[in-house]
């Protein structure tokens, strides 16, 4: 059985159409049967085709007649409430598919702007972005900041309720690289050795990072303990911005 995608249009080739009809009719009847059995409900199907003088019926003529009589006895409103024809059914499918498309576009856009955001965080300029990109980027940044603030608040709360003083503020550079940053056993301990990171940096990192890795003890002009730094932040932005924002 081939799994080629079938175009949703009338099959013009007569023999192909007849073959498709036979197969799909059989499958349809099987599905009606399964639905009826699995859910313990009454169902019937009637198919008029040019290939048979009498309609194909499931379960059988008698059963279908019984069900249709029962159907016709129901109040008019009950009958038509959940009644649908090809046109209505297809319109509904279009609406649903359009909604899925919209959602997928939105997700893709967010993924895309996330990449842009991380690139900008490490020095990519904003000049190439159009208004809409900047708008979306700003929105994404705000979302992330919300989460960051929340997490900072919760960490600070749990710190103040702990008897042990947190030791997070002064970490040596190599420890930061190994990502033990912060307090609590709940954090993931990243054990990637410094050398591997350095190798990665050689291939893909910005220049400042490469310099930093080569001179782990050099504080690069900042006082106090150095840590793996982002280009911005901590009031040192003036130093970086000349490099990244000419």
């Amino acid at each position, binding site marked *: 059985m081939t799994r080629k995608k079938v175009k949703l249009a009338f099959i013009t080739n007569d023999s192909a159409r007849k073959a498709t009809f036979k197969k799909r009719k059989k499958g349809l009847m099987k599905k009606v049967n399964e639905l009826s059995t699995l859910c313990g*409900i009454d169902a019937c199907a009637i198919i008029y085709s040019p290939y048979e003088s009498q309609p194909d019926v499931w379960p059988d003529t008698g059963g279908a007649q019984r069900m249709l009589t029962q159907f016709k006895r129901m109040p008019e409103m*009950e009958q038509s409430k959940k009644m649908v024809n090809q046109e209505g059914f297809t319109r509904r499918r279009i609406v649903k598919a359009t909604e899925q498309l919209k959602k997928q576009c939105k997700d893709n856009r967010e993924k895309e702007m996330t*990449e842009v955001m991380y690139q900008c965080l490490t020095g990519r300029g904003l000049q190439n972005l159009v208004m809409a990109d*900047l708008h979306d980027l700003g929105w994404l*940044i705000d979302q992330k900041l919300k989460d960051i603030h929340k997490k900072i608040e919760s*960490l600070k709360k749990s710190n103040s309720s702990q008897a042990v003083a947190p030791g997070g503020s002064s970490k040596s550079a190599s420890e930061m690289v190994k990502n033990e940053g912060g307090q609590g056993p709940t954090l993931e301990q990243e054990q990637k050795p410094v050398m591997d990171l350095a190798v990665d940096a050689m291939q893909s990192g910005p220049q400042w990072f490469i310099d930093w890795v080569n001179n782990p003890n050099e504080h690069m002009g900042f006082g106090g303990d150095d840590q793996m730094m982002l280009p911005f932040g901590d009031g040192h932005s003036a130093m970086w911005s000349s490099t990244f*924002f000419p």
Partner: protein
Amino acid sequence: MAKKPSMGRQKIKIAKIEVKNHLQVTFSKRRTGLFKKASELCTLCGVEIAIIVFSPAGKVFSFGHPNVDSIVAQFLSRNPPPNSATHQLIEAHRSATLRDLNSQFTQVQNELEGEKKRGETLDNMRKIASERKYWWEKPIDELGLNELEQLRDSMEELKKNTKNQTNKLFVEGNVNPSPFFVPNGSGMVDSVETKPYQIHDSSTNPHVHNFGYGRGFF
């Protein structure tokens, strides 16, 4: 948002389902699938169908082409189908409408497929990027207080720069003249800059940048 792993296709026994919840769900899904198959059969082979299904609650669902009532009437009365000129005209019109709808549906489906593929590509990009293990790209839950504060400062800086750049563009009259609300249907593009942007409606993107000119963008 990552897709929750579902149980996939499971072979089930064709007997009445025991658990009421499962029965309800199965009924709903299979009924929809049944109507979909019937709809396809009508389109592909040009036949006339009626399907009538009684729900576990006693409601009745029906699908019919050209419509349920005419098929039911025809079946119960055993009359031959109407074939007047008027009838043929009505049928021809109906077919034309359906052709349009079907091609419209196919178009949307194809676009959806394209965007799904793009999503996978973007996921791969993120996977590769996160393997470079910059600590600031890790999930926020995995960061320590110190890192978080650093990240926050960097993000605040970036936010400031973004605002400035936006204002700069605005002042320079570089507001993109093409309409904001064009749906994105073009699929893959190489760079962020040339990508047409998508529809934001207020329910999905409530944030509005106020750039001090007294108007938001949406």
